[in-house]
C-alpha cells in the first residue's frame, strides 16, 4: 500500500527519483531567457534574474548564451557571461567567455540548485578596452529547469 499523502515525504516510499535530476510531482518548469543590448566596454548588464519563491527549490540543467552581432571572437574575453547567486558569481560560471549553447537550443549541463529566496541572475560584462561597442549587438542567455516545493517532495530543508 502506497500512501500518497503530501505530508509524507515521497522518498519514504522508496519511489522518489532524485529531484535534482528528475522533476518531482508538482514541479513547475522554469524557462528563463532574454536578450539585452551589449553594454558599453567596461560595463555590465543583467540579462535576466529570478528569485526563487519561499519553500521552493530551483533546479537548472540547461544553459545557453550567445552574442548576436559582429566583431565578437569566441573565447577572446571581450564578453564575459556570469551566473550569479544573490549577487555573487557561482563556481564554474564566473568566467564564461564563449557560447555554451544557443538560447534557441540550450546545452544540457550538470544541474545547479538555488534555494528559496535566492536570486539567480545571468550577467554579461563587456570587458574594459573591448572593441565591441555598446549597443552594437544583442546578448542573450537562457537557463532552463524546474522548481518545486522541496518539503512536499520529501527533500531535506537544505540540499538534496
Amino acid at each position: 500500500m502506497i500512501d500518497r499523502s503530501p505530508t509524507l515525504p515521497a522518498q519514504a516510499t522508496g519511489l522518489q527519483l532524485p529531484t535534482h535530476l528528475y522533476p518531482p510531482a508538482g514541479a513547475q518548469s522554469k524557462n528563463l531567457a532574454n536578450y539585452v543590448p551589449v553594454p558599453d566596454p567596461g560595463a555590465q548588464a543583467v540579462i535576466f534574474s529570478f528569485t526563487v519563491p519561499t519553500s521552493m527549490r530551483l533546479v537548472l540543467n540547461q544553459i545557453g548564451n550567445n552574442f548576436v552581432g559582429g566583431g565578437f571572437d569566441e573565447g577572446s574575453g571581450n564578453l564575459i557571461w556570469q551566473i550569479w547567486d544573490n549577487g555573487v558569481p557561482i563556481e564554474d560560471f564566473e568566467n564564461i567567455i564563449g557560447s555554451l549553447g544557443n538560447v534557441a537550443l540550450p546545452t544540457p549541463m550538470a544541474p545547479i540548485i538555488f534555494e528559496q529566496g535566492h536570486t539567480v541572475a545571468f550577467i554579461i560584462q563587456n570587458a574594459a578596452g573591448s572593441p565591441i561597442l555598446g549597443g552594437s549587438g544583442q546578448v542573450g542567455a537562457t537557463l532552463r529547469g524546474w522548481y518545486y516545493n522541496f518539503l512536499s517532495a520529501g527533500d531535506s530543508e537544505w540540499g538534496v
Partner: protein
Amino acid sequence: MGSLKRFTRLCKMALVVAAFTAAVRPALAQYIGNVGQASTVSAFTISGGTTEQLVNPCSASITSNCIKMIGQASHLVQLNYGSRAQCTVLLEGSPDGTNWATLGAATWFAISLARFSEQTIVANGYYQLIRLKANPNGGDTCGAMTGNYAGFQTPLPLSPIATQFKSHTVAAAANIAGSTNSTPYLLAGFSCYNPNSSVAWLEFFDTFATVTLGTTPFFYEEAIPAMSTFSYTGPNVLGLSGFSAAAVTAQGGATPVSTALSCNFQINYSGPFTPITPLIP
C-alpha cells in the same frame, strides 16, 4: 499442412512486428537551431524642426525609437514624409561610435513639390553602429516623418537609383543642390554649353555655404571653348556638403562670364555613397 500454417502465422507476426517497429521508429531529422538569415526591423519617428535629430542605435539606455544592431551588413530605410519643406536624412555607419560615414541619404527639396513623399535608402557594409541623422546642419525646417529600418546579414543588390537631371544656367556661383544643409550627392555627369565668344572656365564646389569666386576652393575646373558643349559621363563624383557651380573668365578667376552657361546636371541624391571616397576640395 501444419508447417504451412506455422509459416503463415510467422509471416503475419513478422508483419505486425515490422508495422510496430515502423510506427515507433524515431525521427531521424536533427534540429540544428535557427540557421535562417537573421534580420532586424526598427520603426521610428522623426519629429522634425530646425535642429539636427538622431535615431540612434539601441542600447541599454535607448530602448525605443532606435535601430537594433544584430551585426547586419545591409541596410534598407523607408521614410514617409508628409511635409513639403526641404529636408535631408542621412544613413550613417560607424566602426567606433565616433567617426560616422554617410552611407546613403534621402533629400526632399522645397522646389520639388511633385517628388514622392516616400523615399528609400539602401546601403551595404558592416558597421558596428548604424544611425539616422535628420537635418544634419540644422539649416532646414524639416517636417515630421515616420519610417522603418530593416537590416539583413547579406548584401542587397544595388543599382543606380533616384538619379535626376537638373537644368541650370551657370555664371556667378550658383547653388545646384543643398543650399541650406549638408546634402550628399553623386555627380553622375553633366553637359554645359558655352554661348560666349571666349573660353569659359567651369568650376564646381562641394559646399552649401556661399561661394566666393577666386577664394573658395573648387574640386573641379574645366575650360569650355567658345560656342562649344562639354560633357562628362562619370565616374561618379561624391560630394557630402552641397553642390555649387560657377563659370568664370579665367582659370581660378573671380569674374563670372558675361553670358551664363547652359548646363544639365545628372545627380544622385540617395547613394549609396560607399565605398566611394569623398572628394577633398
